[in-house]
């Protein structure tokens, strides 16, 4: 019962932050990233915002508005028991597929592609990445027993991912499609696919990639630019060269916040895909390392949450989300420094863009929702120290937690009774 004492003192600190026993560290990291992002969004948009709308803060305020939406979404997903996704996943997948079809039919065209609604504000492909993770996590969780039957494991998985990827490719948005495939493959791997299955996925993925590159000129162009740039950065694509100018001019400490020169029309899309280069120019190597550090911290928290998840669905969801956000960050930054071929991935939380921010924050909410169990289960040993006893404990915990949770949501009678009911549960 000493563990019970610990669990009551330790989470009490966290309770002050949200009133909920959740991963406060994750909130701090995400808060830092979002704050960082807002600074950079204002820095990169004030000029064209002023020129296009006569108001330097117009774009920034739109992003603040999206942040508001995102925080509401995050709170919702954080309060929602993550097991609800089991039932919601199919519905969400249906909506996403519908949106992907609608955007092809009615979306607005930008940069030769039909990717968004309302002149670029809403991109369903961002949602598609998240929903794919939810859906696959739920699917893997429910089919885990039969996953190793080769055909059964790969067939439906391939169809789900294939349909979404094809719809995104039709926009066309190579980067988003590739990201979906990679996330799916990682999730498949993390979810327990065996070597042979992974091999099949890898071969299929490679063949698809090769096939796609035959079809899309942009893709081929980017690949050849990349191969030239990887050997010698001075031969890289114009975009990467412009990013390199930003990094070089930033040096160690940068020109100072807001002082970037490259954002004035030299570096394309400084507020979205290229924002990392502007970080490098304004805040220097120090700023870049700090930002990467924040993503490492995010990955670390996500890893801990996944490890501490009290059931397989939670672990899969957490793993999918942390891999996805980290992967996006890696692709974006690696592209900017020329070690990956060009891709239009946003930098999560930092880049300007409503759908990306809202979807990322919703994902963080899901992570928090998973972590909420972890905080309450301070006594649960690490997965590495897993045991049959633990599993039994988990079984017990599930029922108890549902009870408290339902109580907390439906009944606002105050904390005293909740604490009482908790200590009851523990005792």
């Amino acid at each position, binding site marked *: 019962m000493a563990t019970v004492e610990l669990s009551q003192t330790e989470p009490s600190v966290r309770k002050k932050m949200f009133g909920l026993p959740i991963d406060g560290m994750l909130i701090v990291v995400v808060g830092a990233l979002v704050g960082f992002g807002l600074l950079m969004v204002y820095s990169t948009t004030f000029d064209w915002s002023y020129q296009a709308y006569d108001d330097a803060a117009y774009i920034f305020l739109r992003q603040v508005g999206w942040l508001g939406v995102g925080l509401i979404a995050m709170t919702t997903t954080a309060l929602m028991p993550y097991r609800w996704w089991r039932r919601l996943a199919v519905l969400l997948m249906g909506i996403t597929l519908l949106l992907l079809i609608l955007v092809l039919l009615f979306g607005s065209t930008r940069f030769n592609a039909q990717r968004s609604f309302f002149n670029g504000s809403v991109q369903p492909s961002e949602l598609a990445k998240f929903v794919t993770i939810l859906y696959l996590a739920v699917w893997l969780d429910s089919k885990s027993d039969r996953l190793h039957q080769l055909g059964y494991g790969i067939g439906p998985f391939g169809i789900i991912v294939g349909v979404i990827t094809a719809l995104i490719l039709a926009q066309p948005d190579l980067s988003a499609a590739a990201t979906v495939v990679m996330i799916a493959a990682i999730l498949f791997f993390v979810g327990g696919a065996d070597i042979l299955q992974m091999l099949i996925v890898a071969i299929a993925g490679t063949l698809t990639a090769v096939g796609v590159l035959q079809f899309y000129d942009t893709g081929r162009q980017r690949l050849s630019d990349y191969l030239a740039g990887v050997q010698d950065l001075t031969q890289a694509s114009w975009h990467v060269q412009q990013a390199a100018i930003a990094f070089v001019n930033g040096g160690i400490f940068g020109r100072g916040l807001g002082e970037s020169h490259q954002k004035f*029309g030299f570096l394309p899309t400084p507020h979205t895909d290229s924002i990392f280069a502007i970080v490098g120019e304004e805040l220097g190597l120090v700023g870049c390392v700090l930002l990467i550090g924040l993503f490492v911290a995010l990955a670390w928290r996500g*890893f801990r949450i996944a*490890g501490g998840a009290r059931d397989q669905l939670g672990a899969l969801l957490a793993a999918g989300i942390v891999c996805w956000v980290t992967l996006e960050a890696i692709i974006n930054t690696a592209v900017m420094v020329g070690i990956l071929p060009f891709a239009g991935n946003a930098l999560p939380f930092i880049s300007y863009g409503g759908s990306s921010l809202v979807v990322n924050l919703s994902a963080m909410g899901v992570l928090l929702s998973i972590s909420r169990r972890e905080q309450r289960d301070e006594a649960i040993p690490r997965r*590495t120290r*897993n045991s049959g006893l633990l599993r039994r404990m988990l079984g017990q915990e599930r029922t108890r937690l549902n009870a408290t949770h339902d109580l907390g949501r439906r009944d606002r009678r105050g904390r005293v009774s909740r604490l009482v009911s908790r200590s009851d549960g523990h005792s």
Partner: protein
Amino acid sequence: MLTDTVYVRLRLVLLGFAAVMALVVVQLVRVDFGSHTVTYFRNLSDEISQLERDFAPSRGRIYDRTGELLVTNDIQYELGISPPYVLVPDDVVNTLSDLLDMSAPDVQAAIDSDQRYVLLARPVSAEVGAEIKRLADLGDLNLGGIDLTPIPLRSYPGGTLAAQLLGFVAYNLEGQQVGYFGVEGFYNELLAGRSVHGLKRMVPFEVEPDPAPDQGTDLFLTIDRDVQFLVEVTLAGAIEQYGAESGTIIVMNPRSGEILGMASWPTYDPNHYVTSPPADPANPAVSGQFEPGSTFKVLTMAAALDSGTVTPQTPFLDTGSIEVGGVIINNWNRGGWGPVDMQGCMEHSLNVCLAAIATWLGPTTFYNYMAAFGLGHITNVDLAAESPGRLKLPGDSDWFDSDLGTNSFGQGVAVTPLQLVTAVSAVANGGTMMQPHILAGVQDGGSQHATQQQVLGRPIRPETAALLNQMMATSLEAGEGSQALVPGYRIAGKTGTAQIPTPGGYEPADSIGSFIGWGPVDDPQFIVLVKLDRPSTSIWGSETAAPVFSQLVQRLVVLLEIPPDDVRHALQAGN
């Protein structure tokens, strides 16, 4: 247990991710500190963030002698697209494809470009630019991303007025305005001002005020817009009336050398030199050479009188032909006039008589005088592309003894219209040729400078000039040039009918009819050359150019406010 697998494999994936992130950091350090990349990208940065360019001042304007505007500056636009600022592509595409001669896909391609600026059209007229601005201000359409950069446009409010005199302005390969021909060409450097070479910085933080170049100088010309208009209208009328192919009229003040009006036909509109380029953009009044014919006899007679070889009363027996250097010379009517004096020779324009005078002068004296009149040399008038004419001299490989005879009545010698006017102006101006010029003064910033009048030469003595002046007036009154007379004013002058040389001979049918005259005789204030090329109604200058002269001068005296002789004499007597 699957959850274990998840944990282990997730750790594996994240470790892989961490490795890539470390790689990103390593690459960042390489970019920031690799000496090769740093130098390269710093240079590239300088290259793209500052544009070397010339900051050209606005070109000087050109006025006539009374301050009436002849040439000024207007604007037109360079139209480009800044793709990042295009918010509603459809509006931009529709508007531009409507207003410009440009297809919608071309505009769309510009919008989809990843460049920060795409040049669409240059130049775009001020009207189209204003329309785009109006539509953008209306607010119904979002035309964000369309960039209109004003670029200077040289504007000639008078259209064809004084076109050849003024020249035109075009853009050279560096995109600078350069004047060609006429005043624009001759005074290009003065008008252009001094452009400053500087850096145009593209980063807002580094933007500095554009360097202020020295403004182009405003020019005031000696021409009078009304006289110029009269000259052009008269010329156009004459071309029409006499069926001439082309022609030139020059009005000059013999006292000062100021060109009051100068026009040639056909002309062009310098506003539209691109769309309808002139066949010959040069100014034929200073660039075109022709054999002057009988008008040249004034100069031969001046030489003979000045050298004392003849007096107006020197007798001559015209037999109708004379042989000089093995070539037989006939009169214009192929007849012999019998006994005449020098006055008669001029009255009847006798080639034989003038050829004889030339032989009396001898080649040395004759050509010394001709050179003194400035023949064979440019007059140094301040107009671009002046031709020197051609005066063959003894000793030249193509000079023969016979040339002395033919030169005496204006054959075998090539002059420009302005050269002839300048040479003959010596007779009108007491033996002194004034430097012909077009620039009356300049205004540069706050300071003004008037052009100093200069003497070009004194080929003959004042007494000779006075004598010849009277001779030419008398011969006009008595001789066959009567159509040139102007009621109320005593005029001196000489007709010319010149054959048009071809390689190895002369054109059989066509001629150049000309008349050079000045007045009032006792106080010459204008000298006018009328030259009509290949008139179809008559080959004789006396029947084409002479009446045009009269018609022109009758109005010219009004514009120049020269009272009729009797009124003027009465006024002078009253004073």
